[in-house]
């Protein structure tokens, strides 16, 4: 029990000193033990982590709303000073985008016609779920954010999280009311991509810096600065064609990609619900298929 002792000096007897030194070693050993458990039994760690974030997310949600409103007000005030220049730029952009819209519609019609012609399997449907970013731990070791949507809202592990600009990351852990998004730039992030007009396959690997690296490019691939990088859809985890970024540097530090996402203005994330179950659900699918086949065989007999 803690005793209120004011600001007196606690004179430690030799026994207490020994006990406190023992406590330090014990707790450091416990921390190492947790580190080992964390690397081996990831389900336990995940469950604990999601339970804690579920508790904390409502608080963060409530507090980050006024923060968002406040920074929104500041941005409004700043934009008033640049109104007419912004207006002109927006008008020009609008005209360009209308042209692109016409091109896109034409291509879409062409695409549909060609698919029909070839009897191609239709792409599974995509639907979106919007969630707010309520927590940004920052720090030098991870790049993750917390969102205020969880299993209750239909979020599942492995879904892509995008902003208006492009792919931001992937859902790594899901709780009841909250979820953790592993950003592209995190050291544990690996996304299968295609690069450039030749659509060379590669893997985008984060390393906690602002420019993730392209790995596993084939030997014949020629990648230049400015090549467009999008998701490849391999593994069925992400839908194909999501914009990621452009190649920003080709050199001794490897091939670096500058993502489109504006990390500083990522207030809202769209979670992509892609109907194709990827490799993460593979075992469940195989099990279900086997059970269905067994039931059918029994019914047939």
């Amino acid at each position, binding site marked *: 029990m803690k005793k*209120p002792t004011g600001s007196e000096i606690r004179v430690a007897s030799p026994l207490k000193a020994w006990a406190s030194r023992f406590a330090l070693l014990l707790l450091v050993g416990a921390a190492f033990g947790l580190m080992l458990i964390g690397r081996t039994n990831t389900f336990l760690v995940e469950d604990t982590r999601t339970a804690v974030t579920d508790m904390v997310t409502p608080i963060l949600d409530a507090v*980050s709303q006024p923060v968002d409103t406040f920074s929104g007000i500041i941005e409004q005030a700043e934009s008033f000073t640049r109104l007419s220049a912004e207006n002109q730029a927006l008008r020009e952009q609008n005209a360009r985008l209308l042209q692109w819209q016409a091109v896109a519609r034409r291509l879409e019609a062409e695409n549909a016609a060609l698919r029909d012609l070839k009897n191609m399997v239709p792409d599974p449907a995509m639907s979106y779920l919007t969630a707010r970013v309520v927590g940004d731990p920052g720090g030098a070791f991870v790049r993750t954010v*917390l969102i205020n949507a969880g299993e209750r809202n239909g979020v599942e592990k492995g879904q892509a999280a995008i902003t208006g600009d492009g792919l931001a990351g992937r859902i790594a852990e899901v709780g009841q009311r909250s979820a953790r998004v592993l950003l592209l730039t995190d*050291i544990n992030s690996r996304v299968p991509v295609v690069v450039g007009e030749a659509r060379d396959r590669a893997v985008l690997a984060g390393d906690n810096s602002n420019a993730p690296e392209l790995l596993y490019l084939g030997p014949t691939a020629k990648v230049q600065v400015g090549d467009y990088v999008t998701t490849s859809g391999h593994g069925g985890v992400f839908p194909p064609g999501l914009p990621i970024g452009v190649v920003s540097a080709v050199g001794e530090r490897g091939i670096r990609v500058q993502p489109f996402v504006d990390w500083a203005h990522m207030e809202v994330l769209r979670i992509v619900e892609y109907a194709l179950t990827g490799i993460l659900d593979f075992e469940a699918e195989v099990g279900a298929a086997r059970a269905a086949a067994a039931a059918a065989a029994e019914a047939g007999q």
Partner: protein
Amino acid sequence: MRQEEGLWHRLDVIARSISPFFVTLLLVLLSLLPLRIADLSPIVPALALIGVFFWSVHRPDLMPIWAVFVIGLFQDLLTGSVIGPGIVGLLIAHALVVWQLRFFLAASFSVVWVAFMLVAAAALGVTWLLTSIALMTYLDPAPLFFQYLVTTAFYPCLAWAFLRGQRLFHR
């Protein structure tokens, strides 16, 4: 009447004794808030380290070592990094302070600040080393160095606020 007074007095005393622990937990939550300022995200100050250090120096009876463990665990669970290195970093900071407690009791504010710089360097360095080992890769120490600088710059503000709070508590 005296019994009621006794109850309130006891609640008051309990509240005062658990407040450093809960304030440090609040600091962990505070460090999670998304600030939406460009490029600030990797250099958010390590607020929990400041809290643990401050109360280990000024109220070691209210920041026992197991409380430091729980705070470290809470922080590692919420930030999403490997569980363990952050805890060991905070435990080392606490242990260093307790080891030299007599020195701190006689020290002025700026001397304690300089000591914080040394302790924070040790704690963050150990956390970096253990995280690198756990992830089996060489983590770039540059963002960690900037986080260290921001943390040491933040210490005086928080320490001043806590000292004022303490004086309020002990009117």
